[in-house]
């Protein structure tokens, strides 16, 4: 009865072989599904059975600290500028030793699309996305995370990286790269190695 379907593509075939072929095709289809019936379902029972996500999967954002335990974020606004949905806002202020810190730092997770651009833009590796995706609230305003909610007390990925050891810092006693054990800062305007 299903010979009709193949008739158009192969007009030269004998109807008998056509019928035999289509019955074979149907049979193989039914055999395939019947075999699937015996297989173990691949479903993961989510809340009971949580799969370990890859390290680099992108979800809840944290602000990390450098190896000395100080906040890494220097309130440079780069993450805020790059964020496609403009969900990061902050206020920079001068901190101890002439370095800048964020007076307040706020991420609105109800708008964040977890694109990871902020992490890429951050010069100090402060802002990082973690694999923790179970981050939802009944009240949408609770999705706005303040600096205290964001700060963690570890270095996240790259936990030995310290921005100031690379970039240097100007203090009252010496300029950038002039302290003990410091290299002169990279001249961004020169293309020499």
């Amino acid at each position, binding site marked *: 009865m299903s010979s*009709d379907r193949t008739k158009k593509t192969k007009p030269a075939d004998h109807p008998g072989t056509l019928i035999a072929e289509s019955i074979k095709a149907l049979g193989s289809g*039914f055999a*395939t*599904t*019947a075999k699937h*019936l015996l297989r173990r*379902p*691949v*479903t993961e*029972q989510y809340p009971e059975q949580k799969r370990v996500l890859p390290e680099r999967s992108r979800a809840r954002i944290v602000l990390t600290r450098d190896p000395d335990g100080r906040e890494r974020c220097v309130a440079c606004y780069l993450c805020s500028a790059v964020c496609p949905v403009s969900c990061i806002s902050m206020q920079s202020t001068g901190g101890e030793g002439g370095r800048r810190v964020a007076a307040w730092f706020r991420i609105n997770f109800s708008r964040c699309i977890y694109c990871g651009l902020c992490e890429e833009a951050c010069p100090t590796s402060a802002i990082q996305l973690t694999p923790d995706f179970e981050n939802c609230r009944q009240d949408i305003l609770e999705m706005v995370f303040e600096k205290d909610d964001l700060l963690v007390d570890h270095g996240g990925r790259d936990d030995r990286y310290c921005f100031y050891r690379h970039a240097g810092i100007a203090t009252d006693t010496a300029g950038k790269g002039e302290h003990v054990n410091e290299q002169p800062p990279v001249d961004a305007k020169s293309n020499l190695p």
Partner: protein
Amino acid sequence: MLAWITGLIVLLVKLVVVLVALLLTAAYLVWAERKLLARLQVRLGPNRAGKFGLLQPIADMIKLLTKEDLVPESADRVIFLLAPAVVSVTALLMFAVVPFGTDITLFGRRVPLIISDINVALLLVFAFSSLGVYGVALGGWASNSKFALIGGIRGAAQMISYELPLGLSLVPVVMLARSFSLVDIVNAQNSYPFILVQPLAFAIFVISAMAESKRIPFDLPEAENELGAGFHTEYSGMRFGLFFLGEYVHMQVLGALVAVFFLGGWRGPWLPGPLWLFVKIIAVALVMIWIRGTLPRLRYDQLMAICWKVLVPAALINIILTGFVMLI
């Protein structure tokens, strides 16, 4: 008078039992379909409400009953509200003529295990299945939505086309049983089920029956990936539930009819009659679910070509052959 009243009571009891059994089976058929389909697709299916998701139908029912019953603003109100009832009522009524066992004796009275044994039972089944078209066509039209209208038109065309092979495929059965009554047809299969002598009629009947109940290879009226939900796109709450119920009751009725016409009805060794019929209905339904899990949807021209160019001629040839064999 007393006999009349007891007769009425017996009839009412039978009606209630059959109705409850049909609705319960429909609910659990939905569960079985979701479960089996899931396993065919290497999924788990519903498993949250109760053990193995066994309470899922009840949860669904509560959800459907408590949902808002929306009527689109530009819909044709009365027809819109009545159409779902047509679908489920015609499906339920078809079961009135299906025999589910031999006569039993209760309190010295012979009680036939059938709601109504009329001598045109087979035609009654067709009459109600052709009335079911109204629910689909009018429901689709009254919604006043493009998707629903296309679904309704497709449904009407498909269902009246497939009624023809459906009816013609049963002519040989009637010829063999020499009666339209389903009781007589079951009795005629005393020694062997008709599927052994009428395999072609069986194939045609099953295919057209699936098209009548709009199940998957033939689910063009509700093709969800082109028409939203087809003729019941605009329905919500329990009115959608009635369409759904109608579909699953229809599935059981078709299972029962396949059993009655080709598999010997309630006849079978060891088990009592109603149980055999139940087993056969469930078997047919499971095969339908398997088919749903395997075959893709047909294109519209294929649907019509299969009906008019394959099934109808095959059914006609089958009638002629059967008549020829019966004469010699």
